[in-house]
Structures are given as C-alpha cells and as structure tokens.
C-alpha cells in the first residue's frame, strides 16, 4: 500500500461523496416534485369539487319545485356581497323553500395550516350551524351585473337588480414544500341563474 493506493482511496471517497451528494439532492428534488405535483393534483380536485357544487347551487337560485312558493324569483337573492351571498332555493327539490348562504370565513380561522391565505368557504342551509371544509380556498369573489350588463357597486341595496354574476375562485395548497403554495384559479364569467329571469 503506497502513495498510489492512498490516492485511489481519496479519489474513491471524493467520487463516492459526490455521488452521495447527488443522490441526496435527487432524493430531495424527487420528494419536492412528488409533493408539489401531488399537491397540484389535490387542489385541482378540490377546485373541481367546489366549482361543481357552486354551479349546482347557483343555477338553482330562485327555484322551487312548487313554483308558487317563490312567485317572484327576482326577489330570490336576499343578500349579496363580494364574498357572500344568501338566496332562496329548493336545495333538496322537495317543494319547500330553503335559504342557502355562502360566505368566506376570516383568514385567521385557519391559523393551524401553514398557508396563511387559506379560508373556509361556508355553505349554510337554512338555520343549520355553519360547517366548512378546508379545501384550500384562498379567494371567493362575487361580482354582480344588472340587466343592462353594468357592474353593480357595493353595497347592493336592492339584490333584485342582480341579473348575472361573475364568480372568481382560487384554491391553493394548505401546506407547501418550502412554503411555496401552488394554486389553481377558476372564473365563471357570466353565471345566469335561469329562474331569476323567469317572470
């Protein structure tokens, strides 16, 4: 065992070390990518779930199976704000009028999650207690338009003026690798609840 052997061992150690570092980095990158991609898939799923629920509910504004119970559907929206809306509908299609209230909870409510922007989107039927699921909603914004297509300014005094609405929704990961939160955005440009315009 001479000098050349020592050089061999040293060289092998350096090369082994480099390989090991590469391995560690690759492992880290693989974990990050897996985490981010998995997160993106989850937020896309969450987004589609929330969107389908919103579309299903909002299309039924002013609807009742026994239509004479909401004789004037243009009065079906009770309250309309930029982050909340309350309206009359028949959510279970049983002929009885229900009230449905959507609103965004405060951002401080989900302080336990790493994402500082996620908030609960509440969906409250009649006088049930408010229950929200954390799907990573960070933005839920409603913009309302009158029958001439003009934007209605807040506060909206007469909700009957609402003809169509725009819904903006953003969903983010509740926790992100290195605090990088990927997100997905959805916008319904003109949602027209058909019953609002019936009569």
């Amino acid at each position, binding site marked *: 065992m001479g000098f050349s052997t020592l050089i061999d061992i040293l060289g092998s150690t350096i090369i082994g070390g480099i390989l090991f570092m590469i391995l560690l980095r690759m*492992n880290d990158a693989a974990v990050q990518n897996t985490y981010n*991609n998995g997160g*993106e898939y989850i937020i*896309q799923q969450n987004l*589609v779930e929330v969107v389908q629920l919103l579309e299903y509910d909002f299309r039924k504004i002013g609807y009742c199976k026994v239509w004479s119970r909401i*004789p004037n559907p243009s009065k079906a929206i009770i309250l309309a704000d930029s982050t909340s809306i309350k309206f009359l509908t028949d959510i279970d299609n049983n002929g009885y009028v229900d009230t449905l209230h959507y609103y965004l909870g405060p951002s401080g409510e989900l302080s336990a999650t790493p994402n500082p922007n996620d908030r609960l989107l509440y969906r409250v039927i009649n006088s049930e207690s408010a229950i929200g699921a954390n799907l990573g909603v960070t933005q839920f914004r409603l913009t309302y338009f009158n029958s*001439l297509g003009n934007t209605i300014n807040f506060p909206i005094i007469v909700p*009957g003026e609402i003809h169509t609405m725009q819904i903006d929704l953003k969903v983010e990961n509740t926790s992100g690798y290195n605090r990088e939160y990927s997100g997905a955005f959805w916008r319904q440009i003109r949602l027209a609840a*058909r019953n609002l315009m019936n009569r």
Partner: protein
Amino acid sequence: MGGKASILIILGFSAIFLVVGQNFNNLSVNSVDNFSKYYGKTVAHNIAVSGANMAASQIFFSNEWSTGFSNVPFSGGMLTTVVEVIDSFQNIKKLTTYSRYTGYNEVYLDTVSVTFQPSKFSRFAYYSAYEPSNIWWTTGDTVWGPMHVQGQLWVNASPVFFGKVTTENGLYTQGYYQTVEVGGHWETTWVKKKGKWVQEAIWVPEYQQVWVSTANPKFYGGYEQGVDLDLPVNGVSNVQTAALAGGRTFSSKDTVYLTFAQDSLRYRFSKNKKDTTVLGATFAPNGVIMANNSVLRVKGKVKGQYTIGVSGTSSKGKVFIDDDLIYNSDPRQNPNSQDLLGMVAQNDIMITDNTANNNNINIHASMYSQEGGFGSENYSTRPPSGSINLLGGIIQSTRRAVGTFSGSYINHGFSKKYRYDDRLMVASPPSFPGTGSFEIVSWYE
C-alpha cells in the same frame, strides 16, 4: 468490485426513477382525467340546457307543440325532450330534456326540466300597448310588479321598476349626441419645409356621433327587450263566453249599476231604481259577470273572486268606478285573502267625476282595457280629488290622464299611488284575458 458497485448504483437510480416517474405519470393522468370529467359533465349539461331552450322556443311558437325531440345529435352528444301536460285543468306543461355525452371512457348524463303555465295579462302591474312619445318615465315613477310596453319605453332620469320589465323595441332614453374620435389613419402629404417640398405623414382622425344617455333607469326585477306581446282582439269576447258558461250576462241594458256588498251583489239598470240583491255565489257561480253593449258602473266591497266585463263600441263598453271598489279582506293586512277582482272593458275604465270620488278613491282590481285606457272622467276640469290608491294592475291599450299638475301641486284630478298586488303573480281573476302564450314558471337544472 467497482463494476458491480456501478451496476448496483445504476440499478438503484433506475428503480428510483421508475417509481418516481410512474408516480408523476399517474398524477398527470389523474389531473387530466379530473378536468376531463368536469368537461364531460359541463358538455352534457350544456346539451340538456340547449335542448330545453330549443323545446321552449317551439312551445312559444306553437302552444300545442308536444312532439318533443328524440335522440337528436347535438354538440357531440344526443338529446331527447319530452313534453307532458301535468295539469290539464290549468294547462300546465312540463318539458324534460335528457342529454347524453360520451367522454373518455365514461358516459355523462344530465336532465333539465322546465314548467310552463298559460300567461295571463293580470300578472302585469302595468301594460301599455301604446306609449305616447310625450310621456316619459322619470325620477319618482315607480312600478312595483311586472311591466310590458309594446314599442319603446321612454325613459328620462331614473325611474324605478321593481318587477321584470319587457319591451318590444327597447328603451328610448333621453340624452345627447357627442362627437368622439373613434380612430383614424395616417396619410402622406407634401409639405413645404425650408423652401423644399417634402413628404410627411399626418394623422387623420375619424369622428363619430355617439348617443350619450342621461337616463339611468333602475331595473330591480330584470329587463328584456324584443318581447312582442300585443293585446288580443278576443280578450273581451272570451269573457263573454265564460259569462255564458256558468256566469251571468246582462244584455240589452243601457247601463248596469253593480254594487259588491261582500257576499251579496246588488244591481239595477237605472240610476233611480231600486237595487236587486242576490247572493254572489249563486248569481254567477264561475265569478264572471258580463254586460253586453252597455256601460257598467261599479263600487263596493268584493268578497270572493270575480271578473266583470263590459262590451260595446262608441260610448258603450266602458266601466265607470262610482266609489271605492275594495276587497273585503285587504291582502296587505291578510296575505291569505282570497278576494280578487278583474275588470275587463272594451273601451275605457274611468273614475267617475262625482262627489264620492272627490276625496281619494280606493281601487282593488286588475283592470284590462282592450281599446282604451284607465283614466279619470273630466280629468282636466274636475276639482283636485286627492289620490288614486290602486292595489292591482293596469292593462291598457293607451295611457289615459288622471289629472293635471303644476310641479307637485294637483290642479285637477288625482295623484297616483299604485301598488301591485303580489298575489297576481300566481293567481288571476276568473277567465281574465290570457296573453295567448305560455310563460316559464320554473326552470330546474
């Protein structure tokens, strides 16, 4: 030794890459699948909505249309529409459209149901077949229920409409023309600079006259134009037919004086004669009372549901309201009130110029004037008479005056306090004239 280690390292890395790659592939596929499902559901829904719209259009063109659609290819999918009568007495129809869209490895189905009922004129708070161009809807004017105007709605400033407003030809708003630059183009021209002619590009603006509306109408119940809904020519004759089939008809009488006295009705044919008193429910079982080729003078307290009509031309075919004509149970105090009155006249419906009407008049009714309008007799000469407190609606051919004013001061006649009877959205007086078409009352999707 070194070779084996290298192979092991390569195999190890390959295994890791395979697992991670497989994971990424799955995520990508699932993500696409997720949105693909949303797309499929959306397309199926849009097909169903389109089918419902197409069928609704057919029903509006032909009330009797019940053919439906069967497996019609549409937007990459198929739609089937079924039309059924769910209430033959009230002629309430329901159309249901089923859609089918085949996406990637999955079939998406959706259903849209629409319910229709025959539309009655009584549901309007205000209807006018002809709006004179010198009468503007302006600030302070408020209509509380559905409204329709054939032709254009003349709007100045900011009137408020709480019900849905429909017009045949849109709005005519007060405003002014303004010249605005809408674009332009560059042109090359010869100009003399320092004694030399040179070419220079100059901007040639283009102008256009643009109408700037100063009106700001408030449509709190929606607005739609392009709705052609004329008064029918058989509105009065249909009431005549209903009166003959289970109601009561007065014929060959110059004037009929009719007083509602809760359960009873009193009538006479001459001003100074004695009234004949009858029980309303047996006198006109279906609630329709018609005076043919006559003048009808009415007042009293209505209990139950009635439509009173009058036909005739020239000085006949008019209704005169001689005194308060109100419901026995006011629906504003008692929402369960069943009292409902329709007045259907060939010509005008007028508030009589008499002592009883010189200090306010209360009218609870939906009024329909086929060739005239609702107004007050001698509106420009009668004394200031307070206000018309109307609960109901006005459906008329032409707008009539009820008084003359100087600012907010009444010189002659009445001021107007019209409120819509919300019950008219779901109920109508017996055999009240229909529009001849259906209206959508419920849309489920």
